[in-house]
């Protein structure tokens, strides 16, 4: 068969199609979505000669297995994992040729959580509001992959890969998130703000694409009640009534009523996307640039 498509043999725990997301629609209640580990998604696109807006696969915990119907170049990066073609080990973090009908297995993450699978030509499911990303909060975009799903692939751009191997950061043993305080830090006691930027937290297993939830010291409020709903940004650290900070990731709601004590720097969110439950988390306050 020569048609450009990818058959999903093993969907894995949660594998979704992701690209740069659909920013610009937050005023309609549409989350931005998009790849959680943006540098990793960018890298697999560069390794396969795709433009940066090309859709890739984002796996969670245990990878996925796919069978391309035509010969394609793929690359796997993000969470390190074993990669095999028809059972033979191939390189992770580098372009790999997968013959038509061969089985590409992306193994369980050895460390980190989310591996990215780039395919030359990209995944070309129908875009919604300009993006092919699966948004788990709103349900926009294609549903998460299931066994047997067939994904259409685009034509290669004809551009040669601009890198063949690339250094990548190892998933963090400790997640250090730089934050700028506010806009609602005054809703917390000074003691709570000190606790937030000095005490260790841990990544909660309840974390997902919507938010990185934490376990640790509850942050005490200086004032009770809810804020009138206000707009939320990527990286916002919202504190729900249980007092444990939640870092908003790509599928976060566009508005919310719990106070945002701080905002995590965008550059630190890729590491947040790879932090497994139980990973120690430290929030460290930095000045606004």
């Amino acid at each position: 068969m020569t048609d450009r498509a990818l058959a999903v043999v093993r969907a894995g725990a949660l594998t979704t199609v992701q690209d740069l997301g659909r920013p610009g629609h937050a005023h309609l209640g549409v989350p931005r979505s998009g790849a959680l580990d943006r540098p990793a998604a960018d890298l697999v696109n560069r390794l396969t000669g795709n433009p940066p807006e090309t859709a890739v696969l984002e796996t969670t915990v245990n990878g996925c297995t796919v069978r391309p119907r035509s010969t394609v170049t793929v690359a796997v990066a993000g969470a390190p994992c074993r990669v095999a073609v028809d059972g033979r080990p191939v390189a992770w973090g580098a372009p790999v040729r997968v013959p038509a009908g061969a089985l590409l297995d992306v193994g369980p993450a050895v460390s980190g959580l989310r591996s990215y699978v780039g395919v030359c030509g990209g995944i070309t499911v129908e875009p919604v509001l300009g993006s092919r990303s699966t948004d788990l909060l709103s349900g926009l975009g294609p549903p998460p992959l299931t066994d047997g799903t067939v994904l259409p692939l685009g034509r290669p751009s004809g551009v040669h890969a601009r890198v063949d191997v690339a250094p990548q950061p190892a998933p963090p043993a400790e997640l250090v998130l730089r934050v700028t305080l506010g806009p609602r830090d005054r809703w917390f006691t000074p003691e709570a703000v000190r606790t937030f930027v000095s005490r260790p937290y841990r990544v909660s297993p309840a974390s997902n694409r919507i938010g990185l939830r934490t376990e640790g010291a509850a942050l005490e409020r200086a004032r009770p009640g809810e804020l009138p709903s206000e707009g939320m940004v990527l990286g916002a650290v919202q504190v729900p009534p249980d007092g444990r900070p939640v870092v908003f990731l790509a599928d976060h709601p566009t508005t919310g009523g719990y106070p945002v004590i701080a905002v995590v720097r965008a550059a630190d969110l890729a590491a947040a996307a790879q932090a497994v439950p139980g990973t120690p988390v430290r929030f460290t306050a930095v000045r606004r640039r």
Partner: protein
Amino acid sequence: MKVLPVGEDALLVEVSSGDEAHALHAELLRRRAEGALSAREIVPAARTVLLDGLDAPARVAAELTAAELPPAPPRARAVVELPVRYDGPDLADVAAHWGVPEREVARLHAGTEFRVAFCGFAPGFGYLTGLPPRYDVPRRATPRTAVPAGSVALAGPYTGVYPRSSPGGWQLIGTTDAVLWDHARVPAALLSPGTRVRFVPVEPVGHP
């Protein structure tokens, strides 16, 4: 107007009322349209407007702090009419909160012109204001695990219509067949911030 920095490239502009937020939102959209403001997102909410993806947040903050808020623009936009059947399961509870007979809930609600103050919760879900404060109602003590799409609902000062089936704690007073969200349609959202809305009973109110 109070301008709060949010992270590295966003600002939260706080005002003192929903009407001011409406006026500020309109003014910020105007500035963006004429090229005087570069923001990826302009997100109005209850008492704030969020500007996200700013090139020069410090400069925009200084400009806004110095600016006088112009009055809200005239109501130029057409009214979106939503056909509604006042048949919700919480109609009696809402009537009790309001201290009126059930069919009076329908008459008061259908007699109100609403405005989409902001969107959120789900794509195409608008928070509509227009009812006087004495008609605020609490959320249900126990949220429903599934509220059907098209449910017309009340909570706090807001009316909303569920664009799709989802869990929800609002008081359900009616049902509409209007399609609030269709991503294949342009525009996908029937309601966007600033849209004027009327609920038009499918059956004459008071003559079931």
